């Protein structure tokens, strides 16, 4: 029974969803098994073998202090995906809640919410994040705090807009007429229809958050150096790019492959969930 259900569901997946999900799964598994996939350590320096071009022993070459770039890129999966996941789905949960409530309840709560959202979108996202980093100091914890403070607004906006449409529909009226409490009407009845646009957007947001973390680390404001974060690795290879292109180029490529697989999933989900909008806005 369940096997058939799974097969039926898979049959409904568009090609982009299948390809994206396969790639993403491969990336996640590679990240999980990173320590056992190469014979090297991501931190051990080998000053005798620095700046070696890609070869059989070092498929991605070595960096300026002789660390194996492939090993570092594989360990980077753990860092970038973990931060990307947390910065996407934690704000999504309360953003959805607040947005849905705001759209359903209206009144002063909605007005307050809208003013907050207006102020939040008036600042360029990255600029506000950098300002918060200037206040609290660089590091992963600051990135979490900054993103948690700001990123929910996008989901709240989406959920609010969807809820304004759902609120007037017959099934919501029916649930209210039956005397169900507001929380049940909002979260059990309307939410399943409100959530789809946010799920599709979350895939683009995931990509943007990986870009955000790597950009901040590239600027020296995010994940601090010895850690193999992809953006930080690009920054480390910057001074050697003329003689050793692989140090900066290959971690960047890892970001592109990860981001593209997430975007493909988003594109496919948009199809599958019947969203008119494609994965990115």
């Amino acid at each position: 029974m369940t096997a058939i259900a799974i097969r039926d569901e898979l049959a409904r997946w568009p090609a982009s969803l299948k390809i994206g999900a396969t790639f993403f799964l491969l990336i996640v598994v590679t990240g999980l098994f990173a320590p056992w996939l190469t014979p090297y350590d991501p931190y051990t320096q080998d000053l005798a073998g620095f700046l070696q071009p890609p070869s059989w022993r070092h498929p991605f070459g070595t960096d300026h202090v002789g660390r194996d770039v492939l090993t570092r890129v594989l360990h980077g999966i753990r860092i970038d995906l973990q931060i990307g996941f947390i910065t996407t789905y934690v704000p999504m949960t309360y953003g959805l809640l607040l947005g849905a409530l705001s759209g359903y309840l209206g009144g002063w709560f909605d007005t307050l919410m809208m003013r907050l959202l207006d102020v939040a979108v008036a600042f360029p996202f990255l600029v506000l994040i950098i300002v918060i980093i200037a206040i609290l100091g660089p590091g992963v914890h600051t990135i979490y705090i900054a993103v948690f403070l700001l990123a929910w607004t996008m989901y709240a906006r989406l959920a609010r807009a969807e809820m304004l449409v759902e609120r007037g529909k017959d099934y919501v009226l029916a649930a209210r007429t039956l005397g169900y409490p507001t929380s049940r009407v909002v979260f059990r009845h309307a939410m399943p229809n409100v959530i789809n646009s946010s799920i599709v957007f979350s895939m683009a947001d995931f990509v943007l958050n990986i870009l955000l973390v790597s950009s901040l680390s590239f600027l020296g404001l995010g994940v601090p150096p010895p850690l193999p974060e992809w953006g930080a690795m690009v920054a480390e290879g910057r001074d050697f790019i003329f003689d050793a292109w692989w140090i900066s180029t290959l971690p960047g490529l890892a970001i592109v492959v990860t981001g593209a697989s997430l975007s493909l999933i988003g594109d496919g989900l948009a199809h599958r969930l019947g969203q008119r909008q494609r994965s990115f806005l």
Partner: protein
Amino acid sequence: MAIIEYILGRILQMVPVLIGVSLVAFLSIHLVPGDPVQIMMHGRATEEVLATVRGELGLDRPLPIQYLRFVGGAMVGDLGKSIIQKAPVDEIIGERLGPSLFLLVYSAVLAVVIALPLAVVAALKAEGPIDHGIRIVGIIGFAMPPFWVGLLLMVLFGLVLRWFPISGYGRTFIEHLWHLFLPSLTIAAFLAPILVQSLRSAMLDVMTADYIEVARAKGLSRRRIVLKHVLRNAAIPVITVLAVNIGWLLGGAVVVEYVFAFPGLGSLLVRAVGHRDYPVIQGLSLVFAVIVMVINLLADLSYMAIDRRVLRR
């Protein structure tokens, strides 16, 4: 008359947002854990110097007074003094505003130039192999980190081929265009995929509309229909997408400016954060927010120029 009313109403709507924005910019310095002045001086100043700086920044007064002074100053363009450069913040920002705005407009223009033909082809051949190909290229482009693209373009076209300079701004308009080509292309590479998809779906919506049927029935050529009817009506959603993403565009520009050592607001911000130059950070966050708001206002006004029916809503 309706036009003036509309514009005035739209500007009035900006007032509460401006108050919120100025509060955020103002409070940022007060949220610094510990003594911001001590941190700005990197813990090396004597108590006397600290007191002087505190006095200069007005940090020794009550908060509401400080806020009013901050807003009052900002309205006449006085944003205080930089701790590091010992110059007025408005002058430092003013010098760099022009280059940054130039970069912004240049990138937007490049993005439209890249996106427009791709979107038209994708929409006319929707769900065909060309459309899918364009989407895949877009998905890859969207996932490319701007700092990485910038670095690669800089190495390839700046250092290896030597076609374009790798930094600087130049003096004349033509020199600006030449110096800013690589950074603008970097930003456009990120923006174009978003534009292509939104323009494509907007065109598909318009193409099924009745008036397009009418135009077709009148025997107008396909070329004329696309150019005169479809694109004009698809322009509004595209402007919305550009305006909504202006925050992302500015954020991406911060990183790209840093990569190309470009004398703009973004590289100034990164440097100010490094030096903990809080007056500059405050001033910049205010200026960035105002840029976003003005661009959104311009977007709303351009809807009006394209489609007068906006006024009746």
